[in-house]
């Protein structure tokens, strides 16, 4: 296997993969001060890179403004969405960006402790991350009076997950950190108000935090140059599936799907699943759409399917994923996902009626608005989009049923 440093040298990209010196982000941030940091962040237009796209500056501002004894910055490294592996690359090859982003966040919101929720499947990188953090402590980039700034004490702790996709949802993540089952909470109140142990907490994706040092050193306006007006900056795409060059690519927002397919040398593409299992499945006619929060929003997962793939089997794989990973709290998600999966099995056997399939699609629409958290709200997305966009293929090969 290639060494990590070798791989890092070959990665190119306008923002995250651009050059960066260790420590320069923190240094600049301490110089700028909280107000200016928030200003740069706001002018950059950075939005959450985990898929939800919530304006990061708003999150930080609300937390910075609240009055509490303790505040926390949590790095959401529970990358469980099928097809997403960009955070793995960031954590292995660019830990300086991620951790310095956390330090800057801690400085801005007034936190003393940063927690990294690392998914259990990434336990193999735990030691290298802990070594890096120790090195940061030795360089006075963590610990007491960071880089000479009096009273700025900040440290980072890594906590492991234990194999649960739903813990990627921010309130479920906080529950897991607190030692409970990873079940999402009622919102409001939001974590910026009541988060870890009841204190204001900012939960940010790895990529979001990794963008911060670049924005601080090069300015928010520089970040805006890339991307579109509503989706500024660039995005890491983890591309897998039927293509010649799977891997992590940094492309500006606004790139169309066709352009991406060309870059990864995908041939005979029939369908592209954008956003992982909770995203949408696009057919050829929609390949001219662009990646953007206002068009096809995504956390970066792109899975490519060529003509040989059976879309119903793909859909079944996704629904099995959700049935297993649902936390089981709320009725629509717990039972709804099972019903959708049973519907797919009926289609496979050819024992379905169109009216029942339509009822299931209706159920999917209810799940999208009535579920307690993002998992239940987005699990019907692939069900509805695949059955809609590939209905000829699915219903021809599986019979018209009754």
């Amino acid at each position, binding site marked *: 296997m290639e060494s990590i440093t070798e791989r890092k040298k070959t990665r190119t990209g306008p923002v995250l993969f651009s050059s960066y010196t260790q420590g320069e982000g923190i240094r600049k941030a301490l110089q700028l001060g909280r107000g200016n940091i928030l200003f740069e962040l706001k002018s950059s237009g950075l939005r959450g890179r985990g898929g939800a796209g919530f304006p990061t500056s708003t999150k930080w501002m609300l937390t910075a403004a609240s009055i509490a004894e303790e505040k926390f910055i949590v790095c959401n490294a529970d990358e469980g969405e099928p097809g997403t592996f960009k955070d793995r690359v960031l954590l292995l090859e660019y830990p300086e960006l991620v951790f310095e982003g956390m330090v800057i966040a801690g400085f801005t919101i007034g936190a003393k402790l940063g927690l990294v929720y690392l998914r259990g499947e990434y336990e193999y990188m735990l030691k290298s991350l802990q070594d890096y953090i120790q090195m940061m402590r030795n360089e006075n980039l963590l610990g007491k009076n960071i880089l000479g700034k009096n009273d700025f004490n900040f440290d980072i702790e890594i906590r492991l997950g234990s194999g649960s996709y739903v813990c990627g949802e921010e309130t479920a993540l906080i529950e897991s950190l607190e030692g409970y089952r990873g*079940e999402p909470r*009622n919102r409001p109140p939001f974590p910026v108000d009541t988060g870890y142990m*009841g204190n*204001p907490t900012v939960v940010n994706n790895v990529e979001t935090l990794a963008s911060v040092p670049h924005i601080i050193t090069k300015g928010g306006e520089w970040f805006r140059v890339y991307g579109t007006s509503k989706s500024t900056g660039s995005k890491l795409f983890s591309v897998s599936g039927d293509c010649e060059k799977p891997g992590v690519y940094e492309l500006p927002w606004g790139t169309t799907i066709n352009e991406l397919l060309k870059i990864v040398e995908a041939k005979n593409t029939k369908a592209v699943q954008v956003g992982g299992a909770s995203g949408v499945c696009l057919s050829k006619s929609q390949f001219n759409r662009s990646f953007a929060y206002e068009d096809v929003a995504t956390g970066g997962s792109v899975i490519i399917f060529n003509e040989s793939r059976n879309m119903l089997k793909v859909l079944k794989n996704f629904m099995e994923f959700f049935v297993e990973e649902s936390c*089981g709290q*709320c*009725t629509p998600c717990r039972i709804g996902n099972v*019903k959708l999966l049973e519907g797919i099995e009926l289609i496979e056997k050819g024992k379905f009626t169109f009216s029942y399939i339509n009822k299931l699609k209706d159920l999917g629409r209810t799940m999208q*608005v*009535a579920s307690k958290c993002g998992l239940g709200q987005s699990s019907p997305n692939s069900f509805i989009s695949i059955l809609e966009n590939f209905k000829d293929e699915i219903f021809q090969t599986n019979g018209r049923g009754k």
Partner: protein
Amino acid sequence: MVKREKSRIPVSQQPFTVKKPEDITTIGGTVSVQINEKKFTVPLGTTILEACKENQIHIPTLCHHPDLCIAGVCRICVVEIEGMRTLQTACSFPITSPIKIHTSTPMVRKARRHIIDLLLSEHYGECYSCFRNGNCELQSLAKEYGVDGFTFGHIDTARYEVDRSSAAVIRDMSKCILCKRCVRTCIDLQEVGVLEALERGHETHIGTFLNKPLADVICINCGQCINRCPTAALRANDPSDEIWMAIDDPVKHVVIQTAPSPRAAIGEEFGIEAGKSFTGEMNTALRRIGFDKVFDTNFTADLTIMEEGTELLNRLKKALVEKDDLVKLPQFTSCSPGWIKFIEHFYPEYLDYLSTAKSPQQMFGAIIKTFYAREAKIDAKDIVTVALMPCSAKKFECNRPEMNSSGYKDVDYGLTTREMAQMIKEAGIYLPEMPKSNFDEPFGDASGAGLIFGATGGVMEAALRTVYELVTGREVPFKNLNIEPCRGFEGVKQASVKLENCVDDYKFLEGVELKFVVAHGTANAKKVMEMLRRGELNDVHFVEIMACPGGCLGGGGQPIPTNAEIRKKRAEAIYAEEETLEIRKSHNNPHVKYIYKKFLTEGPCSKLSHKLLHTHYTKRGKYIS
């Protein structure tokens, strides 16, 4: 930032307590909100559900319960808020800004319908063969939304085996809708910690530690989970078939003793609003069903006061006169079997503090099969004693191996209020219209002191009325004998009464401030035990503890549903009935005097009474039985 109270329940199921401002007339104290085109002003932080309840707007709920913290898991109370893409649950969403809410839009109605369909698709069983037929929240919801078919199918095999191991509580998880009320009751309200959600996703089910049968874990049988379960997933162990057999058997002499709390609540099972006592009517109904004798448990409640009061005075004498350091004070009451099992599991090192007196139910069983059998000239082996109790733990209590002082099983069956109402209905009797009648001799009508056992603080009040008078020769210095400091629903009540000008026999108590503590609900019992552990109860003499919130009137066998308002009305019914009685002190009960003269001739706490009326306790494990 909002600090949550330290609670065992995960934060995902805790209420969002935006601190409601003290003064709602100031700016920022209230917020104007629009619900269904009407404008209302509510205190900041009110949830949508609360706001709607106050303004008579109906929103259906399932996992919500007024006694418990908010869960927000069933999603049936969803409403639409303008400007928000997803529907929000009314039970958990706090109103902090002027929003526009719609409680019945096409999307809301469809969502509710889908949720009911999903729940029904997994709910095993048919309504007509279910004991909650007619009183089931899922059934009512289905009717409210006009369900006339199973959109997503209906399960036809039970997913889980019914757990019938416990003498008191039966669990049928195939009927569970995962509202988590039982979990919140057991962990949060009662702090016993027997039930929790296990596994994840579709495999989620409510279970015990290591999925052991209920009888093998530390369940104290208080039945509070049964009272709050919306469906038939939890029920009490019903012995009515066997009781019918006994009644129909001409050889058997079936007697029933009735506790005060069922009388104050049984009307609810017949559609009467809470707060009306049906003592006289129930006596008639019971005889018509076929019980040979109907006795008043209050008689042995009075007996308990004599025994326990004497025991307390004996302990006080040992402590103050003989200066015996080993005597255990304060003395804890022992009539609540849920409390007994609680202390046996969690604080077995303090068992000596318990009074050795049995509960009134068990005392009666022993008396009936000895004294009464002799008086009535009936062979004790043909007597079947049934106890009508508000309590599910009594079913466990009557099966305790040591409860056979009469030579036979002292109490054969414990029957709950709900089960009794069912038997009365089966016999075609409409209870509220029965003529009134009295209890049977030789135990007759008991004193008011025995009657108030049903409410929290009642045992304490009854004991004080007797003890004070024994010691000082005067009545308790409270208006109308109503000892107010004992009454009310506060978790832990503390008060005291001074003993002055004592009679010669009790001169050693001259000037002593008799301190007592009253607690109800095992969460408060735990608080009291921790106080004991820390040495904060060193100057307290008497503690009354009831396992169920509200005392026995909130017991695990009482009519469903339950909430603070209903329990308050039942308490009012009990206290009101008590004031109408002639005799209000246990020691004035002529039947009590008679039994000590004729039968328990050695007096209270003597060797003979110890044999029949006192018991011992068993140390049990903290995690597994």
